[in-house]
């Protein structure tokens, strides 16, 4: 069953007099429970594609369907609700709200979902324990290492039970050991909870862990292989 269906997506950015064709007709289908890496050089269109899949940005043309929701028929508020309930995000950096502690950052999404306070707290502590952050619940992002911050971000992305997690170069700012720990954790969740993971990356380690590798170049898919 398809979690993501993308048909002939095009996206062009205009910066002053310069026009950049970020995506030039992408077709992609990702099944539920997949663990996919989008690889390609910088500027190839990986992040744009990921943003479009997450409803953070809209394509100029083409169709995007995530978990049976077609984006072109949705308002900004609908997209926000979809992101809140179905999609988890992990960004490369600036992932956490600096004035909230680790547990508050994880609870934040559940707060928006309207989860009661006690349940929020219980689920947040459990997921932080799962990602190896026992005892660090009340630390602010500035008091955590880069790896710990990404773990909090992953915890936040999956705590609300999303159908899909979109991770934009999640290991880019991490040392290889921390990055691998994070990947193992996400792989485990993918296996146990059938959460679909899509990464944009040019980290060879992430590519090795992925079961499917989609390579993008100049806004087009140039290779799509399942391992």
């Amino acid at each position, binding site marked *: 069953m398809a979690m993501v269906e993308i048909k002939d997506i095009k996206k062009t950015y205009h910066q002053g007099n310069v026009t950049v064709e970020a995506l030039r007709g992408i077709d992609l289908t990702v099944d539920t429970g997949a663990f996919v890496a989008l690889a390609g050089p910088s500027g190839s269109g990986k992040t744009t594609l990921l*943003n479009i899949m997450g409803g*953070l*940005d809209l394509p100029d043309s083409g169709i995007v369907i995530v978990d049976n929701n077609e984006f072109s028929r949705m308002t900004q508020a609908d997209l*926000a609700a979809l992101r*809140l309930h179905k999609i988890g995000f992990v960004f490369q950096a600036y992932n956490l*709200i600096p004035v909230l502690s680790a547990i508050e950052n994880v609870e934040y999404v559940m707060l928006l979902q309207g989860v009661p306070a006690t349940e929020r707290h219980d689920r947040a502590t459990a997921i932080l324990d799962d990602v190896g952050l026992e005892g660090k619940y009340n630390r602010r992002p500035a008091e955590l290492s880069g790896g710990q911050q990404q773990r909090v971000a992953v915890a936040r992305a999956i705590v609300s039970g999303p159908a899909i997690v979109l991770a934009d170069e999640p290991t880019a700012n991490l040392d290889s050991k921390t990055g691998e720990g994070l990947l193992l954790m996400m792989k485990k969740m993918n296996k146990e909870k059938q959460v679909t993971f899509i990464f944009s990356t040019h980290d060879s380690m992430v590519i090795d862990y992925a079961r499917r590798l989609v390579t993008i170049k100049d806004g087009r898919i140039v290779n799509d292989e399942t391992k």
Partner: protein
Amino acid sequence: MLVRLAWRNIWRNPRRTLVILLAVIIGVWSMIFLGAILRGMEAEMLRNAMSNLTGSLQIHHRAYRDDPVVENSMADRDKLDRVLGISLGQGAHWTRRVRVMAVASNARHSGGVTLVGIEPEKEARISFIGSAMTAGRYLESGDKNQILVGRAFLATFNTKIGHKLILMSQDIHKEMASKAFRIVGVFSAESEAVEKQFVFVPLSQAAGMLKMGESISEISILLPDLDMTGTQETHMALKLTAAIADDTYCVETWQQLLPMMKAYLEMSGFFLYVWYGVVFVAMGFGIVNTTLMAIFERMREFGLMKALGMRPLQVVKGVVAEAFFLLVLGISVGNILGFLSVAAIARNGIDLSVLAAGAQMWGIPRKLYPEIWVQDLVVAGLVVLVLGVLVSVYPAVKAARFTPTQAMMKN
């Protein structure tokens, strides 16, 4: 948690927060402090005007105010006494007067005055004259030909206590009436014009001189509480009019008796609120500027929040909550400072005696005691809070309108 988030966000840049907080505090403080001074001045001016033989209400013959002659006097004293005894509540005072224009003369000078026949004991509880004696003595109920004059009158007529003064006026039969009085006391008033204008004699002597019998010119009533809006006076006037049930008499409030004062108070209240508006406009720019700066600094964060599923309206609420906290804090501290500064000067008042010569013409008191009105506090607080929150909606909407990707590319 959203409250916690908003509170922590405003302290992310303490210096900037303190600057805008200071602007709000100074604004609110100035609203309260200047408002209290203005209200104190208004109250003192009204008290002075009321004690200047006006009172809270007056009862006259219907034609008296247009033509204040002895013929337009009130004869039915007993009925009026009865009505007042029943209608006025605890703490209210009233007194009868004869009041006519007269000519005063002595060996050196003559001039127009207002002859006021008073009931000394009752009058002392209502008007300024009871506590205004600077020399000699006050009138007593058994006095026959004693008269009180003002300090300025004494100088104008080049006379002194113990000397004789002749008063002439038209009696009830339209004949010239005159009587010799002896000055027994000198009074001072806020205004020199009052000191020159009024002379006081016992009611019975004035009525006797003018052959009025039991008739009187007016009844002045002083209600126990000062009501700057005149509401209680209006209610009492309606009550007395109904109780008297006689078209010959009319009951008028200080607002009808002192239309200039009423207009001044209305204008003064209006200007106070204009001042509130001016203060707010200055403050409002600061609030918008600070909120915009805070938002542009955190634009990436708003992008992140929206990416996580925060709806645009929730972004607006979050930003407005920050402005709300800032305003509540500023209003609270501004109020405390306002109360403290008013309390500091309320005990001894502000001495305006250096301005007395110029100020008396406008009825401004020599000493000013600030007064805080709950109504002004509420209006000042609401103006700052409601308008402050409203102006913060602009930057909040700006933050909410960026798409997550636009916002995340900002910083």
